[in-house]
């Protein structure tokens, strides 16, 4: 794996081509449709130089983390309940499947009707939209646990706590990390919708402001902030994955 700062040549060329096409388009279209790239970059930098803007970005990040953490904790509990009892699985699995089928926008409407404050609304929306994926991915990892390793560990008569610590936790860690990576992308999309509808701060709210001002450069700058945040956190998770799963064999030949 390459360090984050060593971007592939193809990545740089691909993104560079997009920037170039956008800049060329800006010469032929009005500013409110295709603002020039320097204008977008300027707005992007302004966000990082203005404390209030940074606070808005921070609020969104905090909402993503709070929602994902709540969904993760609940997802772990539900995954274990389903994994340990076939009867519970038969009850809980269809419920989670149903929840997964509900569109994010429906959760937004339900949250607005059910909850009074902005933060409980957004927490509820984030949790409801990411809970099923967390539960299913952790359940899959739990069920993929090696029967051989389970019997071997049991032969040493561990306590339940030790069994969890020495076998179950290391078994499900890769599934947990994948779940975080997948759900981070989902959460960043949902949080913007939630903020767009019901918040008075955050990246979604700022996007709404830019729409009302017809400021495309601002809208793109705020979008880039969110994308940068997601990419940064994904890098952190990938680093963590590299450290925690260092025991995995690597091969010189790719598939």
């Amino acid at each position, binding site marked *: 794996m390459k360090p984050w700062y060593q971007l592939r040549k193809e990545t740089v060329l691909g993104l560079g081509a997009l920037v170039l096409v956008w800049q060329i388009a800006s010469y032929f279209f009005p500013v409110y449709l295709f603002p020039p790239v320097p204008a977008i970059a300027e707005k992007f930098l302004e966000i990082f130089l203005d404390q209030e803007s940074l606070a808005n970005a921070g609020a969104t990040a905090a909402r993503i983390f709070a929602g994902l953490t709540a969904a993760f904790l609940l997802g772990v509990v539900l995954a274990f309940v389903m994994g340990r009892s076939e009867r519970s699985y038969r009850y809980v699995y269809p419920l989670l499947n149903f929840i997964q089928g509900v569109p994010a926008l429906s959760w937004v409407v339900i949250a607005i009707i059910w909850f009074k404050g902005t933060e409980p609304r957004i927490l509820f929306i984030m949790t409801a939209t990411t809970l099923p994926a967390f539960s299913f991915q952790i359940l899959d990892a739990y069920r993929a646990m090696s029967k*051989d390793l389970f019997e071997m*560990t*049991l*032969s*040493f*008569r561990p306590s339940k706590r030790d069994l969890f610590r020495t076998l179950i936790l*290391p078994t499900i860690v890769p599934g947990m990390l994948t779940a975080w990576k997948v759900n981070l992308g989902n959460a960043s999309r949902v949080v913007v919708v939630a903020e767009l509808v019901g918040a008075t701060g955050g990246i979604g709210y700022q996007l709404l402001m830019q729409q009302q001002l017809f400021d495309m450069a601002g809208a793109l700058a705020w979008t880039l902030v969110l994308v940068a945040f997601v990419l940064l956190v994904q890098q952190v998770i990938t680093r963590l994955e590299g450290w925690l799963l260092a025991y*995995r064999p690597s091969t010189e030949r790719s598939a």
Partner: protein
Amino acid sequence: MSGEDANAAAAAIEFRKVVKRFLHQDRREESFLAVDRLSFEVAPGEMVAVLGRTGCGKSTMFNLLAGLLEPTEGEVRVLGHDPFREFDWFRGKVAVVFQNDRLMPWRTAVENVELGIELAGKNAEERRKIALGWLDRLGLKGHEHDYPHALSGGMRQRVSLARAFAVNPEILLCDEPFSALDELTGQRLREEYAQLVRENDKTSIFVTHSINEALQLGERILVFHRPAQIALEAKVAGGDREAIRQRVLAAMNLRDAEAEAAA
């Protein structure tokens, strides 16, 4: 000495008319008989080899002994206790070496050896010292911090042997641990295993389908036929090995012929 302790002293392992039936997964009302009224005893410090063909119930007997399965009928006693019902009592007293090495891929060799002693509650410093000692003894010095994928099959099985011996168990259970290794590595590990069991005065049950392995590692051989029942019991120590081999072969073939005729 209590009655229970006296019993434990008399026989380290005891099977009394043990029956094990499994329900077919798809037909819940029917069952498969894996062990049929099996009775035998193993004295403290004795090395017993259990021999039988594939599917004769050796592994089921092994799992009953390890406390991983509960008998349908009869009684299993290990050191005077029930290995299934008194599961926790056996912590640190019994260790198992399985057919495949069953090393945790996320633990290095030394961390794998530490597993049993860690679960028995020894502190980090003490268990590291014990684990390193056993790795050294089994010729793995220099590989302590290698992950299992970086070790050969023979080295991995040595780590699993070290893991079992590190617990210093009273009873050692082995389920064909060398069957997947090449002849030379298997032979070398068999010799090391026999030496370690004798030196450390362990009671050991060694399950195998190889007559040579049974003769090499058993002071006594129990030949199983299907469903697990004793077809022959032969004392190896001090006996004529060729004569024993012929008796064992005859017992295995005879029982197979009987089973075929009955079918």
